């Protein structure tokens, strides 16, 4: 380790990058790029979906019973504030060195962002709109599904975009316990200084984040044409 790490990393130029990718893309063994990409997708998508599925009822309950909101949001914010490493340590005793150990804290982080988004989204329903729904004879459930939730969608989706990108990026921290998805490429490069894995890791993570964000923007356009209509007017 006499030579500085960075200059040794740079010494390996682009020619060997493609070669490295070709050699490691799909070796059929654990730890190939394709394999890590799959792990990364699972460990980031599960928290996004689970976070949304759990934040919706929590948010609905918090909007319905306001006194519930601050304590609930507080719990998730505290979990959000905990450093990942001790959280992993704590979880390892229960779930071991598995993907679940990464997925659980990321799900909590997702809820910490999405819970306020759901509550604010429901709060964005104008009072006169809610009242006219009542006056027209919507039952409470139907009003929620057909009026309040659709109007909350833009705010919830904005939260979901933050969650998707941060979740995809945060998975790499799991490398600390050997479950980092593409993040494993960074620890590997650190142990055995070599540039290509780092480049591949960064590019793929950023690309995943961009694709996820793009899909959510598309979903927003399809689900809420009325928001675009408002901007155009």
């Amino acid at each position: 380790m006499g030579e500085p790490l960075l200059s040794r990393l740079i010494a390996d130029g682009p020619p060997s990058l493609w070669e490295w990718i070709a050699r490691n893309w799909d070796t059929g063994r654990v730890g190939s790029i394709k394999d890590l990409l799959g792990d990364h997708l699972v460990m980031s998508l599960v928290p996004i979906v689970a976070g949304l599925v759990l934040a919706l009822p929590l948010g609905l309950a918090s909007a319905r019973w306001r006194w519930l909101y601050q304590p609930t949001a507080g719990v998730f914010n505290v979990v959000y504030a905990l450093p990942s490493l001790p959280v992993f340590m704590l979880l390892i005793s229960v779930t071991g060195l598995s993907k679940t150990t990464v997925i659980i804290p990321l799900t909590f982080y997702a809820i910490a962002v999405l819970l306020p988004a759901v509550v604010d989204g429901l709060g964005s329903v104008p009072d006169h709109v809610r009242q006219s729904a009542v006056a027209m004879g919507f039952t409470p459930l139907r009003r929620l599904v057909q009026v309040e939730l659709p109007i909350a969608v833009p705010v919830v989706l904005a939260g979901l975009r933050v969650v998707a990108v941060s979740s995809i990026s945060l998975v790499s921290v799991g490398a600390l316990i050997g479950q980092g998805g593409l993040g494993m490429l960074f620890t590997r490069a650190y142990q055995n200084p070599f540039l290509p894995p780092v480049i591949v890791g960064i590019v793929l993570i950023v690309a995943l984040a961009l694709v996820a964000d793009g899909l959510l923007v598309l979903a927003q356009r399809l689900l809420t044409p009325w928001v675009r209509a408002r901007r155009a007017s």
Partner: protein
Amino acid sequence: MITFDAVTKRYADGTVAVDNLSLEAPTGEITVFVGPSGCGKTTSLRMINRMIDATEGRILLDGDPVQDIDPPKLRRGIGYVIQQAGLFPHKKIVDNVATVPLLLGWDRGKARSRAMELLERVGLDPAMGERYPFQLSGGQQQRVGVARALAADPPVLLMDEPFSAVDPIVRTSLQDELLRLQAELNKTIVFVTHDIDEAIKLGDRVAVLRVGGRLAQLADPKTLLSEPADDFVREFLGHDRGIRRLQFVGTEGLRLRTDLTVPAGFSGGSPEPWVLAVSDDGRPVGWLRGDGGGEPEPYGTFRPGRDSMRSALDAALLSPSGCAVAVGEDGKVAGVATREALDEALAEAADG
């Protein structure tokens, strides 16, 4: 018919919003609840469709106590128009209007075609059906609100200050539109406003409520203006009650003179101080001095039999001659109501 039978609304903190209110809103008429803020007019309205439940007393809808009807079912049978229209921002106009028919289980096609029909009925281009509420002006949104309330053809319509958030010109046209619609539809309408002029213009009957939710007077607008029950009502009506009462005096009996008109090319020689120049197609041009001097002066018109004495008097005050020009529906001059004729009619109105 909607009947309030000794209805009281008392909140948990002891505030009384509505105090022992008994009145009837007759079928096919517009009953207006008017009063200052805090008089319980909106609370009274909302007790009809059970958005608020009465503490004491009963409200009957054609004899049936509303307390016995499941709220969503009750509300689907009662149209409701709210101040800011309350349109669903995420739904196209046509789907907004089709809301109640869809809740009632109509099929989509039928509900949509009914919605299109109603948009036309309230004076909107059906092409607007494909837009979203944010793309419409306040006045247009309010028309959609009325269309939506009428969609399932409910016999009863509740309107909670529906026109108070739009500018005065739009408000006037919405009020005229409501009266036109009501002449066709004959709904039982309960209309809440804080604007006494709106109450007098729209109401077949006006219920004036005072703070604390007590009924001060229930009367038709003409009676209200000529015989206010007490100082509160008198003060609430404002100072020009006498002039405003002329709104309910007709002009069909007004004596018209037809000998005061001259062709547009008139050049003098009339014994009258003022004569009305009329164009070749019979329309008024302006007042000219009987000696032919000067340019045509401004004039005011009214439609005899259609407009009120208030309009006729207004028309007279707009011209230097002090006479009002009577025009037919085609805009052609039908005659002139002189000061003397107006004076006779006013004397009669004061007696009656």
